[in-house]
């Protein structure tokens, strides 16, 4: 494929970007959940 240009790549681009954003959002959500849980258990302790 040295000369031809790959067309119709947008669907892949959109997929890649949305997966990235989704995964990072899920990770942030899990961090916040864990952080709340850790804070709660620390409060219970003291």
């Amino acid at each position, binding site marked *: *494929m*040295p*000369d*031809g*240009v*790959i*067309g119709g*790549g*947008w669907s*892949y*681009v959109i*997929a*890649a*970007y949305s*997966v*990235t954003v989704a*995964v*990072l959002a899920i*990770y*942030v959500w899990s*961090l916040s959940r*864990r*952080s709340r849980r*850790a*804070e709660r*258990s*620390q409060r*219970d*302790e003291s």
Partner: protein
Amino acid sequence: MNIRKLLVLAGLGLAAVGTYFGLFVAPPERHMGDVQRIMYVHVPSAWIAMLLYTLAFGFAIALLWSGRQKWDDLMVGAIEVGVVLNALLLVQGSLWGRATWGVWWDWDVRLTTSLVMAILFAGVLVLRRMAPNEERRSQWSAVATVVAFIDVPLVYFCVRWWRSLHQIQSSPDTVDPAMVLPLRLNSFGLLFLALAWMLWRAAIERSSRRASEVPLPTRVAIEESAHA
């Protein structure tokens, strides 16, 4: 707390501008067309994941050297965020590969190495969950981190030799200046975000460790029953 918020804000801002430039301003690549825009998230993911692993390696060495638990908190933060970015890297790479090579997966040097790398560092996280107590947990994770980190270049070289018999890897064209800007913006954005998450994860680890700390007499009792 404040530094984390600052990092998140800076990171989100940079990444937003970078993504805008990457998607709508930068020209499509000569051969790959628009698909190449995946690069603006793909390459930063790779860079930052590698950076986080390197940091984790540094923290592991510091932990083994000093025995201070605070390095363990940072280490787990770096590895966890690194593994997340590494997983993203694999998905983005796979999509890109499908678009350009027509296959989801190719046993190419970088793909293979990043897959092995993800498994290795995910293994560290698995080992952590299984460790019998806190001190073992931090030392074991540090040991596994050091070994994994040293292993990555070995895997890379080996796969390169292994592949070299089949095909020479095509090198990307020199990057257009218009492409450099979004790449740079996104890289710094992701860097700040990743650092913020790493610190956040470290803070969680620290507070859950405090919560699990038990007063001395109780601990003595627990240890005795464990050794009996």
